[in-house]
Every structure is written in C-alpha cells, then in structure tokens.
C-alpha cells in the first residue's frame, strides 16, 4: 500500500491529501462451472480477472461496463459476500481478504451495500422498522425507544415519512424501496458504501432523486462510494474518478474530466461515443463495436478486448496489457500507449 499511497500523496500536492480507504490488488473471483453427472468442476467463469484499483477517503469511484462484465462480482467480493479466488483487499489499512467468522462480521459494520433490485433486496416478511434497525441491533445494545428514534431519524434523512416504520416493503414504490435500502446501509454509519446499480431498476423520473440523495448523504456522513453502473451518463453525475471494466478486466481508470475529455482505451472511446449528445450541432461519430462479448468462461488470449477492437494489432492477441499510468492520474491497459 505504501508505495502507491505516497505516489498519490505527492501528486496531489497542494490539494487536501486524502488517505486510501480501499486498496484492491490483483483481485480475481472465479465461479466454478460444474458439469457431468458427478458435478465436478469443469471450468471457471472468470468474472473478475486480476483487477487492481484504490479508492481514497471521501471519494466516489464509478465502475462502468456492459452487463456481465463482472461489476457486481467485484462489489460483492470487496464486501466479502463472495470469496476472492486470488488477490488482496485492504480496507482502511486492514487486510480483510481472508478474515472469517466473527472477525468478518465485526468488520462489516464499516462497509455496506445498496443493491440493484429494490424488489428483491428487502425481506418481504420484515417491517421497514425491523429492516432498518436490524444492522444496529446486530452490533449494539439499545433500548426500544432509542432504537425507534434512530430509525425514524434515518427514515426522515432518506426522505420517507415516519408512518413507513410499521409498513412492509410491498407497500412502497421502487424508489421508496431503494430509499429503505439506503437507510439500512446507512444505519451503521459505515465508511464505504458500494452502490450496485442503485437506480437502474427505477423510473427515469425518480433516478435523479435517488442519485441526489446519495450525493447529499455522502457529504453529511463522510461516505466513500464505489458506484457501479452500466451507463456512463449516470456515473458521470456521481463520480470523481471512473473505472471502465471489460470482461473481468479493468481497462481504464481516470478522473471524471480526463476520461470524458480524452478517453484512451478504444473500448472507453466506443462507450463514450454511444452517449447521446444533448446538443445536436455537436455531431460526433459513433463507434459501433463489432461482434458479441466473448464468454468469460473462455476469454480471448492477450487483451480481452482484441476480438472487437477497431484498432487491434496482431500483438494484441498475444500480450495481455497491464494497467499503466500514461498521464497523471490516468491509467489505461492498452498496448497503444
């Protein structure tokens, strides 16, 4: 951690030096594929295949990529909801890669998740009051009145009326359910929140309300976000830095401005060219990618993107490019740079 941290600190000279909250190194998460009648492991879905990045305190890192590229798997592995196959997860200076049992449960109060599906992420048999108070009950002894007060406070903070306390999930709309999920994640006052496509299941009209809520809460509760989305325009609104994933690999990480002004990786360029332009005069050429995303069970050799890359060279199928810093704060994994 020390080398990268000092590098960041020097580069940000003059600005407020922020510490690294989360440091991911060479993380891999493979799902075993069972086959045959003996249910043996016959292969692996390489959902996350060697990615490294870090998130500084108070920052929002956006994570984008097509469906199935391993964003959720990354988020869930970081929160140790899945077991990493390889690599290291350092959270707030502590290696949480291999902790288990009570130690892991204790560590969980500092990192929480907001889930993608507001309909599946609330237990249908639990009242809202019980859902939001449960994290607190798991960690602290409180009397009933204190607990209820705290939950009502959280409810009002996420913009829900106190009457919600006794209701059940099925009585709310998607946006309101997502607010309940946010209140649950917030209840323990965590340091890191991983938001896994928190608005992708919501109507466009409520998307921005929920995004704004997340932004407000970040300032108020000193939160650090890993914000996952499959849509660059949502991420742009939220993030300080953005990481672009393709087939289990991180292909580019840069600050928000830098990524939009000058996308380096051909995949990022294609993604950005696909964002509809608000100003019709600013015509730009849309890069349409050929072919389908290859199977993560059997990814292409060399650069995972070379099968669809408009700029692919012969080398690309042989050498796997690593993420390297080509401009201050702008990392890309491509042999062109």
């Amino acid at each position, binding site marked *: 951690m020390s080398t990268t941290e000092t590098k960041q600190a020097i580069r940000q000279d003059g600005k407020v030096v922020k510490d690294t909250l989360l440091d991911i190194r060479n993380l891999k998460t493979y799902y075993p594929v069972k086959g045959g009648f003996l249910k043996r492991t016959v292969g692996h879905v390489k959902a996350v295949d060697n990615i490294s990045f870090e998130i500084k305190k108070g920052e929002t890192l956006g994570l984008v990529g097509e469906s199935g590229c391993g964003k959720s798997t990354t988020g*869930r592995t970081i*929160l140790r*909801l899945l077991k990493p196959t390889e690599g290291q997860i350092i959270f707030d200076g502590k290696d949480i890669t291999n902790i288990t049992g009570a130690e892991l*449960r*204790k560590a*969980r*109060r500092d*990192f*929480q*998740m907001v*889930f*993608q*599906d507001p*309909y*599946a*992420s*609330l*237990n*249908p*048999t*639990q*009242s809202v009051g019980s859902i939001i108070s*449960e*994290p607190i009950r*798991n*960690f602290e002894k409180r009397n009933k009145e204190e607990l209820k007060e705290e939950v009502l406070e959280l409810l009002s903070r996420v913009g829900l009326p106190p009457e919600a306390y*006794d*209701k*059940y999930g*099925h*009585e709310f709309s998607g946006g309101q359910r997502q607010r309940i*999920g946010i209140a*649950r994640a917030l*209840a*323990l006052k965590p340091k890191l929140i991983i938001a896994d496509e928190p608005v992708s299941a919501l109507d466009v009209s409520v998307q921005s309300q929920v995004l704004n809520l997340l932004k407000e809460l970040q300032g108020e509760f000193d939160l650090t976000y890993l914000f996952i989305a499959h849509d660059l325009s949502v991420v742009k609104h939220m993030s300080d830095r953005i990481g672009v994933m393709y087939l289990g690999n991180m292909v580019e990480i840069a600050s928000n401005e830098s990524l939009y002004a000058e996308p380096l990786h051909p995949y990022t360029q294609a993604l950005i060219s696909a964002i509809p332009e608000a100003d019709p005069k600013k015509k730009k050429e849309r890069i349409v990618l050929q072919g389908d995303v290859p199977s993560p069970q059997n990814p292409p050799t060399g650069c995972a993107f070379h099968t669809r890359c408009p700029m692919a060279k012969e080398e690309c199928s042989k050498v796997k490019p690593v993420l390297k810093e080509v401009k201050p704060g702008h990392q890309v994994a491509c042999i062109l740079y």
Partner: protein
Amino acid sequence: MVNVTADSNKPQEKTVNMSPWAIARRKFFRNKLAMISSFFLLAIMIVSFLAPYITTQDISRVNIGQMSLEPGGEHILGTDKAGRDVFTRLLYGGRISLVVGISCTALVILFGTLVGSIAGYYGGNIDTMLMRFTDFVLTFPFLVFVIVLNTILFGIVDGLWVLIAAISLLSWGGVARIVRSKILAEKENEYILAAISIGCKPSAVIIKHLLPNVLSTIIVQATILFATLIVAESALGFLGIGVPQSIPSWGNMLTASQEADVLRNKPWIWMPPAIILTVTILSINFIGEGLKDALNPKSFR
C-alpha cells in the same frame, strides 16, 4: 360508478400496514370450506382430548356379557366383539391417532427443515453429505424398520413412542428435499446478501430471513404430512404393527374389519372409525388447500 370506486377503495385502505401474514390470515378466514374444516378438526381434537370427561366407560376391559351389541341404549354406537363401547373407543382412539399425527408431523417438520435449510444455505460439501444421507433414509424400507424397531424396543419403551420415533425417523426426507430446494431459490435474493452484509450470523440469516420466506411451503407440507401420517398410523394399526393392540386407535379399531363376519354383518364396529378417519383426512386436506391459496407468494411481494 361513484359507489363502485368508493367500495373498491375500502379493502385497499385496510391493507395498509398489513404484514404478509395478516393478509394471508384474512384470505384464509374468507375461505368457507377451509374454515368449516378447521372448526370440524378443532371439534374432533377437543372431543378426543376431553374423552375421559365425556364418557366413563372402560376402554380395555373385556365384557363378555355385552359382546357385539348393536347401537342404541346404553351404547350409542354399540359394542365391539370384546364387549367394549365403540363410542368410547372412538374418542380415545382419536386421541391416539391425533397424538401420533401431530407429534410425527412436528418431528418430521422440525428435522426436515433443519436438514434442508442447512444443506440449502451452506451448499457445497455440507449439502452433498446431508442430501446423500437424506437419499439413504428415503430408500429405507419403512415397514421392515418399524417392525424391527418395535421388536427391539418392545417392553423397554412405551409402544406409542416407538411408533412415533419410527415414523418420524423415516419420514423427514421429503420435507428436507423440498425445504432445501426452496432455500436454494430463496437465497439468491439480494435481501439475503443484505442480511449477511449487515452482520447477521448464519443462524440468524436462516432463522430470521430464509425460513419466514419458505414458511408457507413448510406449512402446506405440514398439513399434507399430518393427513398422510394419520393414515400411516391407521394403516400400521390395521396391519397389527402400529400402536399396541391394547391401546385403541382408529387404525386398531379398523383391524376388526379383517373378519368377514364383522365386515359384512356388524358395520357399527368398523364404520365409525372409517368414517371419522375419512372426514378428518378430508378436512385436513381442505385446510391445506386453503392455506396454499392464502399463502400464495404473490401476496408476499
């Protein structure tokens, strides 16, 4: 038109703040057939368990002077071949049949749910081992096991408990399988990940989050089992390997019909247990159907 909308608004107002359980309960209470069946079953249970207060006849003493009396007079339903009052035996028999049915159902549900939920939640090797064991138990020959167990434990343990233990030990496999498959499907929901990430222990995830959401399946299974196990008890009694013959049970009472003379000429001896058994099973099945409708997962989402 105005009236219609006003009416259709009313039930919706009522649903506010109702837990999925409250909604299910209301639905069940509206199901006439299920409610009638529930009252009937409740009545049978009360009458059976209050048997000593309802009739003072001796259930086991052979009474040579009063053999095979037709219904009427002192004996409402007549007497059997040993001169014992059929009505009295019917009440006491219900007690035994229901005790066997209820305790076996409880044990089977308990054990099946335990094995099924642990296997489903943990998966992997634990799942493989537990399910192998379940398959093994399911292929065990039931009758042989009961006979052997009865013989070994004869005289050591009360015959009734031997029977309950034997039935329970051999019948939980189906429940374990169903619970496991339900848990496997249910644990894919993000609220289970949420429960883990807010620091719930595995036991809390299973008990507080998974089981309440598969409880509807378990309840429906329990009613089916209850009916099946009462029939199983009667069948074993009929074959003479169930509850010891000295204790009346509906199954034991049916044994009398093995004699052609009783079957043809003395229907009052075997008809009452046969009828009450049939009606009880029917009402349990109606209750099961009602529960299945009421606990429709759609009302939970």
